C-alpha cells in the first residue's frame, strides 16, 4: 500500500552553533515510516542554512517576525497555503509559538493542523511562573523570581544566595556571583530579550534533559533522556548520549499526566548531590537534539504529525540506551542567484536550482 504524502511546514531552519530544531525535525519526518513528506521550510532570515539544503527542504518561504503581529503571519501562511496545500505546521521557535497558538483555530479552518500546548499550559510553564508551576504539580523546581526593574537587583539577597542565575525571558542564562555581576547580566539580558528578567536559584549538580511528546490527555507518547557530553560556550549540546534513567522517565510521566501536556517538549533538569532532580525549564517545543531520539528509536516528529492529523498513535515504550549524537558544521557553497532569489522573492524552490 502506498504511503500518503503529507505537506509539512517547518520553521527553525537556522542550523548554527545555537541551532534551531528545524533540520533535526525534518530529518525525523523524512525517516517516517507511516507517510512520505513534502517539506515546506519557513524562514525569517535569508541566511538560515537549511533554505539552501535541497535534501532537507523542498521549498522555503520567508515569513514575518512575530513582532509584526499575528494577522500579518496569518496572511503570509494563507499565501503559502494557496501554493503548497499545507497539511501540518510544526513551529520550532519559542518566540513564535504564541502567535501560532493564537492562530490554531483559524489555521484549522483552512485545513492546516498543528499539535501545540494550550495557551494556559504555555503560560504556566513559563520560567517566570516556575515556582507556582512546581507547587501546583508537585515537581521540585529552583526558586525563581521575575524582576521588572534593575533596582530590584539590590534586594535579591532577601530571597537568594549567590551564585544565582540571571535568565532572559526567551533565551540566555548567566551565573552571577555578586550583585555587580547580577546587575551587568540584568542589563545585558533585558537589552536583548526585554523584561522581565528571571532570577533563579542556582542548583549545583549535573544537567539532564528529556525530550518527549504528550498526547494532551495525560499520556506519554515518547520520552528519551539525554546528558550533554559536549557543551558550546552558549550552553548548547554539541554532543549527547541517551540514558537509561527510570527516575527521569517517571518524572516525565508525572509531568505529562498532571499537566495533560499537548505536543513536543524538552525538560531541562538538574540532579543535585543528593540525587534529587530539579526542573529548571520546560521548553514547549521539540529541541534541536531530537534526532538523537529518532536515532534511538522514537520518531517524535512523525508521532507529532500523526497526532496533529487526529490519528491514533501508539506510545513508544523503548529506546536504545548509549546512542550518541555529535553535531558538526560544514560549509556549503551556493550560487549568489539562489540567495538573491530568496531575498527578493521570499521563496526558494530547492529542487529547481
Amino acid at each position: 500500500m502506498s504511503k500518503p504524502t503529507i505537506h509539512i511546514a517547518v520553521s527553525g531552519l537556522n542550523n548554527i552553533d545555537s541551532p534551531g530544531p528545524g533540520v533535526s525535525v525534518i530529518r525525523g519526518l523524512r525517516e517516517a515510516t507511516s507517510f512520505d513528506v513534502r517539506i515546506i521550510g519557513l524562514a525569517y532570515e535569508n541566511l538560515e542554512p537549511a533554505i539552501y539544503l535541497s535534501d532537507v527542504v523542498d521549498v522555503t518561504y520567508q515569513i514575518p517576525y512575530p513582532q509584526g503581529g499575528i494577522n500579518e503571519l496569518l496572511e503570509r501562511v494563507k499565501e503559502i497555503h494557496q501554493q503548497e496545500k499545507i497539511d501540518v505546521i510544526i513551529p520550532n521557535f519559542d518566540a513564535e509559538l504564541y502567535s501560532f497558538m493564537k492562530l490554531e483555530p483559524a489555521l484549522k479552518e483552512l485545513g492546516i493542523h498543528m499539535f501545540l500546548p494550550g495557551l494556559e499550559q504555555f503560560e504556566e510553564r513559563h520560567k517566570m511562573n516556575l515556582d507556582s508551576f512546581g507547587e501546583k504539580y508537585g515537581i521540585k523546581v529552583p526558586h525563581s523570581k521575575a524582576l521588572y526593574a534593575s533596582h530590584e537587583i539590590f534586594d535579591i539577597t532577601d530571597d537568594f544566595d549567590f551564585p544565582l542565575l540571571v535568565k532572559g525571558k526567551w533565551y540566555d542564562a548567566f551565573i552571577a556571583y555578586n550583585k555587580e555581576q547580577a546587575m551587568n547580566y540584568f542589563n545585558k539580558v533585558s537589552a536583548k530579550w526585554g523584561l522581565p528578567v528571571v532570577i533563579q536559584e542556582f542548583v549545583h549538580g549535573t544537567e539532564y534533559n528529556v525530550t518527549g511528546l504528550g498526547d494532551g490527555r495525560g499520556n506519554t507518547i515518547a520520552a528519551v533522556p539525554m546528558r550533554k557530553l559536549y557543551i558550546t560556550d552558549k550552553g548548547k549540546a554539541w554532543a549527547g548520549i541517551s540514558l537509561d534513567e527510570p527516575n527521569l522517565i517517571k518524572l516525565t510521566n508525572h509531568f505529562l499526566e498532571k499537566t495533560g501536556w499537548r505536543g513536543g517538549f524538552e525538560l531541562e533538569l538538574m540532579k543535585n548531590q543528593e540525587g534529587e532532580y530539579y526542573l529548571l525549564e520546560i521548553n514547549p517545543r521539540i529541541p534541536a537534539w531530537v534526532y538523537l531520539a529518532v536515532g534511538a528509536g522514537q520518531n517524535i516528529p512523525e508521532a507529532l504529525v500523526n497526532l496533529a492529523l487526529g490519528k491514533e498513535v501508539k506510545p513508544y515504550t523503548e529506546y536504545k540506551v548509549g546512542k550518541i549524537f555529535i553535531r558538526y558544521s560544514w560549509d556549503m557553497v551556493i550560487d549568489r542567484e539562489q540567495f538573491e532569489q530568496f531575498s527578493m522573492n521570499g521563496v526558494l524552490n530547492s529542487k529547481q536550482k
Partner: protein
Amino acid sequence: MKIHPNIAVNENGLLFNPGTGESFTTNPLGARIIGLLKEGKSEEQVREELLQENEVEAHTLEKDFIDFMQLLKKHSLISNDE
C-alpha cells in the same frame, strides 16, 4: 556495597554507566574487581579472590582496594542500598 546492575564493562576495562551517560577506563585489575562485583560477590569474597590471583600482601591489597571502591562510589557506580 554493590555495583549497579546496569553498569556495562568490556574486556578492555571500559565502563559505561547508562544511568548517567558517563564512561570510564580502568586497568585490568580494576576490570577484574568490577567483573567479580557484577557476579554478585561480596567485598570480602573479591578480596580473597584477588589475594589468590595476585602476588600481593594483604595490607597492600586492602589499601588499594578501599581506594578503588571509594572511587567507584564517588562516581555512583556502586552503592550501599542495592
